[in-house]
């Protein structure tokens, strides 16, 4: 991928830091886990 210039995040992530990305993934994963449990 040609190196795009992004003011936020890095060329690999839209998040400002790895920790922010981790926490977002954690919240999303738990939302999926409990959402599926409730709907299944």
């Amino acid at each position, binding site marked *: *991928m040609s190196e795009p210039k992004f003011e936020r995040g890095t060329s690999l992530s839209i998040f400002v830091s790895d920790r922010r990305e981790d926490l977002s*993934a954690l919240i*999303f994963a738990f939302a999926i*886990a409990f959402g599926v449990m409730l709907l299944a």
Partner: protein
Amino acid sequence: MIYTIKSPALVIIGILMLIWGGLNKSGNLDGIQSYLQTSAYSDHMKVKEKFDAELRVATEMAAAENKPAPEMKMPESKFDQEKATQTKMSNFFGGAFVLLGLFILVWKPKQGNLDYFVSVVPGIAYILVIAFIVRWGLDPIFANWGNAVKTAGILSWDFAKIFNLNYVVLGIVIGMLIVNVFKIPAWAANGVRTARFFLKTGVILLGTLYSAAELAQLGGLSVVMIGIFVLGSVGLVLFMGKRMKTPNSMTAVLSAGMGVCGVSATVAAAPVVQAKAEEIAYTIGTILIWGVGCMFLFPTIGHLLNMGPVQFGAWAGTGILNSAQVAGAALAFDPTNIETLKVAEIFNITRVLFLPIIVLWLAAWYVKHEEGAKKVNLAQVVIAKFPVFVLGFIAMFALSSMGTFAPAGHYQGKYFSSAEVKEDKLLKDKEARALNGELTRLRTAEGVQALSKYLADKNVVLEGHKVTPDEAFKALDDLIANKKMMTRQQSNILMSVSKMSGLDAVAKGSIEKAEKAATHDSKVIKEYRNWIAWLFAFGLIGLGMQITGKALKQAGGAPLVIGGIVGTLKAVGSLIVVLMFVKEFV
């Protein structure tokens, strides 16, 4: 900076998805779908045939009694379910993308969060439509080709299975093709950066598939053995990487892949050591190439050394890196006995539990080596670098072990429950009589001798001790009295006994039927697996889009050499240890 680019692309992608959903629902794609979903379609035709016959009989009976024809609805087949899923997903995402795409066309974006996050959506749609093509199209097409080539006798093996030409590999390859041949359109560039986020979400959800109770079936010494090989491989790759002067991020990510189990470990370790996309791809490539060789070699060596199912399972689960290839080698070694596969899988998943330790190790190692001779404060590294998403994996595993998602003791959603056996799945009188006949025969002096020899030869073990004929008799007694399997342990014992030569065919079939009736699938875990597959497909396509040919060339051939040496040492070392110790303690 304004991120949102005005383009009709999102609307077009949305319309294409809606068209696919509409055509699917109307049945216009049934011809294509019957080719893509071969096995589901064959199941569908059986369901349809049965339904047509029942409808005909019911109509004739109604006509004979001068009643109106009955209204009957055909039960939903797997084929119908698959089509319904595709329709739902296409309509949901298609509708959302059309609406948002129209909004982007008329909206005047201003710098800020709304602009930033809206600009991500076209890229997500771009990857998602490719993920649809890969999972619904290319994956089944390659599976069909692999099967066709094998059936036609052109090859004696299924090339699609052996080379793992599934959505994981195809996703990365398609992503690489797009970036190297067509380039990523500007309107999608921002969204491609979400790939790693979705991969991390997938790794966290992986924890739901396993439970501690399943691992408790292994002896403590087996866990120690797995730990030694996992940690030893990581250490060896790190050592060789330094000697061969490969970049630290490349060495670290390769060590996770070689030590634990392929794709998941690579993906989990990559962010911690700031691995580049091409380094991740290189690692996955090395593991898969190595695994293909193992799949051919392991079963042959296993037979040459006259290994038992437990021994071979332990060896394959320790020595082969990729989960699918572990299963492939176990089945190639013994296509009929599930014991080999089960042992191999348990050894294989135990490795995954070393993942948090390895990630922590790599975080400290990476910081230390990137910062040269500077002293590293491990506590600071742990706090600053430890990936929270790995804690998420552990949390999911803990919840799964407590039975939050599926009954405790499940493995990938399959669990044992005697209480849930349905009335119509209980053994019939004829089957109970056949089992009783076999029990009487086995209880004679000759029978006991034959059974003892079989249990010893096959090294049938349970919870650390060798199974005795009395335990087998008790299990058979209970099965006959209750007409269903009562405990998981008894089920395991009888499934081993059912493989004895000379056993009555009806009795053998009854044991298998009772085992199947007591083994249940968790709908929730099945759904999680589906989510994980989509998250990985999406993430790996996005990852592929960050790999250029130039970058791959720069990575050089050193990782392959390191991978080959460490893989060979691990395979040979685990073979020796398994041959020396496994009989005694598994």
